């Protein structure tokens, strides 16, 4: 075996060793990469789990909050309704009372006015009636007096009338009517 052969053999051995070493390093790198990827995957999964859990929790809280809010709102609404109803009832009662008092007052006033007006009208009617009767009596008296006067003038004879007319003319003369 020559030196050359030995060198070649040594070179071959060195190359093989180098390949072996490369393969070893490569293998380690792959393993490390795989481990890293696995770690990343686990981390990702965990993150997702955490996020899911957080979301679920958030949803749960939100639902609870909504439920509570609805309940609270209903409760508040009920309370407000009750309070408002109470206020309204009180106001209505007060108004009704005031209205009743006002109505009674108005009725009383109107009643008094109607009674006063009735009395006034009754007096007016009585006055009118009395005046009408008096006027009627006056008219009757006037007519009667006229008839009696005319009848009286007929009961006097013509000669007597003539004497009294001449007497009237004489009186007129004495009074200076013809001057």
């Amino acid at each position, binding site marked *: 075996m020559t030196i050359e052969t030995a060198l070649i053999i040594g070179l071959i051995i060195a190359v093989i060793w180098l390949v072996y070493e490369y393969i070893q390093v490569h293998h380690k790198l792959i393993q490390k990469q795989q481990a890293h990827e696995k770690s990343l995957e686990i981390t990702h999964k965990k993150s997702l789990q955490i996020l899911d859990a957080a979301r679920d929790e958030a949803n749960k809280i939100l639902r609870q909050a909504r439920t509570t809010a609805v309940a609270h709102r209903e409760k508040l609404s009920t309370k407000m309704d009750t309070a408002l109803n109470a206020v309204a009832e009180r106001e209505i009662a007060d108004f009704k009372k005031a209205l009743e008092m006002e109505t009674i007052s108005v009725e009383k006033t109107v009643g008094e006015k109607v009674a006063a007006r009735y009395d006034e009208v009754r007096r007016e009617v009585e006055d009118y009636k009395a005046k009408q009767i008096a006027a009627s009596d006056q008219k009757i*008296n006037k007519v*009667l*007096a*006229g008839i*009696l*006067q*005319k009848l*009286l*003038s*007929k009961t*006097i004879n*013509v000669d*007597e*009338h*003539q004497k*009294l*007319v*001449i*007497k*009237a*003319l004489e*009186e*007129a*003369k004495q*009074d200076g*009517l*013809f001057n």
Partner: protein
Amino acid sequence: MDYLTKDQIDLLKQEIDILISNKYQSKKKNTVRESTILEFEKRGKSLESWKEEIENLRYLNLSLAYEPTRVNINTFSAWVKKNVGENVVLDINVDPSLVVGAQIVWNGKYKNYSKSDTVYADIQRLLS
């Protein structure tokens, strides 16, 4: 002699006016009128003079309680002509409510010499 009253004088005046207006119409159509005109003129005055005399008359208004007879009218007229004036004529009205006496209106002045007021008052007193 009968004295005329205002109503009669008014009629006479109307008649004279008609006669004056017809005086100058043909005699054929106005024989009656002609004779009347002559009657008037026989009394010594023309129609125009009569009309003027009537227009100068004065009237004494005499309200009586009764319808006077012709004798009464003549008596009153004679008294008036003697005591008031020759040209005064009676304007007679009848109002029975005067009872007796007369109401006289002369020259715008009024006097009541009837018993209307006193009798009326007495009757009213009796009725009330």
